[in-house]
């Protein structure tokens, strides 16, 4: 009887912890595993923002985007596609990417940077290179 009571208490405390963790500290999104909301070329994506920032912001920000284009700049863990979309990778790149290469990436749209006139995508992963 006493044993049952103790194990019940332990169980309640444990499940309390689990529930607390799930509710108050849920895991972060995994963009690479989420379904793509929009598949669009780098040019077109930037055009939507340059044309009408507000509408594009509501449509794309925080959404999972697949985009593609030629690499115009390579930085530390970041690349620029078609001079219009700045991509920040989630993890260090396994292999070097080179300027001129065509790539397909998947990531989360964070918005339009009016200093660079570029759309920014973070937590990106490469899908494939053409």
């Amino acid at each position, binding site marked *: 009887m006493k044993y049952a009571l103790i194990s019940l208490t332990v169980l309640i405390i444990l499940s309390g912890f689990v529930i607390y963790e799930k*509710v*108050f*500290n*849920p*895991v*972060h*999104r995994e963009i690479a595993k989420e379904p793509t909301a929009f598949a669009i070329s780098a*040019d077109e994506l*930037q*055009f939507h923002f*340059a*044309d009408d920032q507000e509408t594009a*912001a*509501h449509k794309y*920000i*925080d959404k999972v985007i697949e985009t593609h284009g030629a690499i115009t700049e390579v*930085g*530390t*863990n*970041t690349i*620029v596609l078609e*001079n*219009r979309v*700045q991509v*920040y990778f989630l993890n260090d790149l396994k292999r070097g990417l080179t300027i001129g290469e065509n790539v397909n990436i998947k990531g*989360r749209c*964070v*918005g*339009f*940077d*009016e*200093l*660079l*006139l*570029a759309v*920014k995508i*973070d937590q990106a992963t490469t899908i494939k290179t053409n």
Partner: protein
Amino acid sequence: MKNMKTVQLVAILFMTGVFATHLYGQNNYVDKAGYLKFEASEKLFEPVEAVNKSVTAVLNTDTGEFASLALVVGFRFENSLMEEHFNENYIESETYPKAIFRGMLIDFDLSNLSDEPVEIAVDGKLALHGKEKEVKTMVSLQKLNGAVVMKGGFTVTPSDFAIEIPSIVKNKIAREVLVSLNFNLKP
């Protein structure tokens, strides 16, 4: 009609292309992956802090003009729920997606910089959440491998930008928010 759209598209693509080159035409030093962190932690409570590693910073080395832009959705918290609340309830990132600082480095002279850090005053305006606030602070500047490295920080309060903190969490969030920055500006 379809033709009109194409013409419009081409015109905009062309114009943004011109502006983009314009940015590099001047003596601008740019960091496209700048680091910004803010902290509003209270002792004994869960840390309230977030980091944005995709911040843009541009320094015109001829004039000392400086601008920096952070897309607020790019701020990452350890706690994903805190991140969600930050975006939805406090900063309202869907309506106000960016934070932008525009200002001047006072008495800036590129030729005075060396690998020895110097303190320089910055004076400008920070705009976010639909509000604007004057910010004056000191940053340290040094020249390393041809790049200008800028480090520093400043404090703001949520009320400066009309961000309301509900009374239920008021004692868990510091009244002053400490913002720290680290930019590696390249020619």
